[in-house]
């Protein structure tokens, strides 16, 4: 690879390591047997020629050039066993890096040369396609069902009130009671005194009112039959009863 070609390819380098690898390949030996010193000299010569042509080199290339110049001097000077880092070590590391880059470059080329889908091999042009039909598996428990019916019943059924039986005093009973009691009385007696003792009975107040109504009607009936007399001073005043003499 001559200088002219290197110059032409200036834009093509993928960094200083790439340039070094190309130069190393120029030695046409296994990278493990490469002369690092020769490689360094080639690189420095390339950078010099680029400068002579007033080509702008990226900073990476100049940094590498400076480092290689240091490596070159270290390799040429008599070996100082205390020198750190050991120039042989630096040279070996550079060689290892070149090997790795080279390996990946070859791997990339082999990868690209494979039978690639859409270029060399093809999938089916018009596949029928596979379909997955989602189907609901409906779930409900018996409790949900029963509870739902309970809920509907409670919510919507007409609520019917049934009035419980309760004790009343019938008109017949009142007639009998009033006609019997009135005969035992000598003087006028207020109608309430003919009622049964309400406090003795369960639900007494209700029964007392029923008895009052029935006894009043009974009193009217007995008066109509001429068996008793009624007396009341004014509307809503106490009503008195007395047996007819």
């Amino acid at each position, binding site marked *: 690879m001559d200088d002219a070609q290197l110059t032409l390819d200036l834009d093509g380098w993928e960094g200083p390591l790439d340039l070094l690898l190309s130069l190393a390949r120029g030695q046409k030996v296994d990278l493990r047997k490469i002369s690092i010193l020769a490689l360094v000299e080639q690189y420095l010569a390339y950078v010099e020629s680029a400068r002579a042509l007033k080509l702008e080199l990226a900073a990476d290339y100049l940094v590498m050039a400076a480092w290689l110049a240091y490596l070159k001097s270290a390799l040429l000077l008599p070996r100082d066993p205390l020198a750190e880092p050991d120039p042989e070590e630096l040279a070996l590391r550079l060689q290892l890096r070149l090997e790795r880059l080279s390996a990946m470059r070859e791997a990339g080329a082999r990868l690209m040369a494979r039978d690639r889908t859409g270029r060399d091999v093809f999938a089916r042009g018009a596949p029928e396609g596979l379909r997955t*039909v989602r189907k609901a598996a409906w779930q409900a428990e018996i409790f949900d069902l029963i509870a*739902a019916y309970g809920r*509907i*019943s*409670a919510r919507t059924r007409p*609520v019917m009130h049934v009035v419980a039986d309760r004790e009343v005093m019938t008109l017949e009973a009142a007639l009998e009671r009033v006609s019997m009691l009135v005969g035992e009385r000598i003087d006028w007696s207020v109608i309430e005194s003919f009622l049964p003792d309400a406090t003795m009975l369960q639900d007494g107040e209700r029964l007392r009112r029923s008895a009052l109504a029935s006894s009043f009607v009974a009193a009217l009936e007995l008066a109509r039959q001429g068996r008793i007399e009624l007396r009341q001073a004014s509307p809503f005043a106490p009503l008195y009863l007395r047996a007819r003499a």
Partner: protein
Amino acid sequence: MTPPDDFVRAVEAVLFAAEAPLTIDAIRAHVGAGDVKSALETLTANYAGRGIGIVRRGDRWQFQTAADMAHMLRRDREEPRKLSRAGIETLAIIAYHEPVTRAEIEAIRGVQISKGTLDVLMEAGWVKPAGRREVPGRPLMFATSREFLVHFGLASRRDLPGIDDLRAAGLLDPVDLAFDRLEDSEDGGEDGAISGIEAG
């Protein structure tokens, strides 16, 4: 399959990769000179009885999956889903009152039901149409199915608890009703007995 010669292989590959059925001329444009028709016949014979095959549609040829394998290309995946509240209430009404029309379900439920609700119940296989009511409009009636009994673990509909059972279980005591009753008794009113329409 015995490997065919390269010309037949080429026709096979071209037909496979094609995005639409191909005429013999179109195939030839890819594979070059050769007896395409005879290659297609060889391929048709090669694929006889396999899961895929070569078919002719008019003057065009294509690969396609065997007709008896079509059902394999589609698969059903069951996803568990819970019935909605409307769904379970509608199902309960049908179960307790069947056969019952949609209007009757709505009257009992006190709320309209959407068309989808009955569809879901029929899709689930729990409800089926059960003739028509002989009244004006002849509305469709619905009833529960055998799958309904199986799913809910019932020997028959008589196994469904009656209203008295529901009451005993407290299932007729939703919060609002119980609350109303509490208020009544505080006012000194008597307990209203609910006269249940006997179900079943």
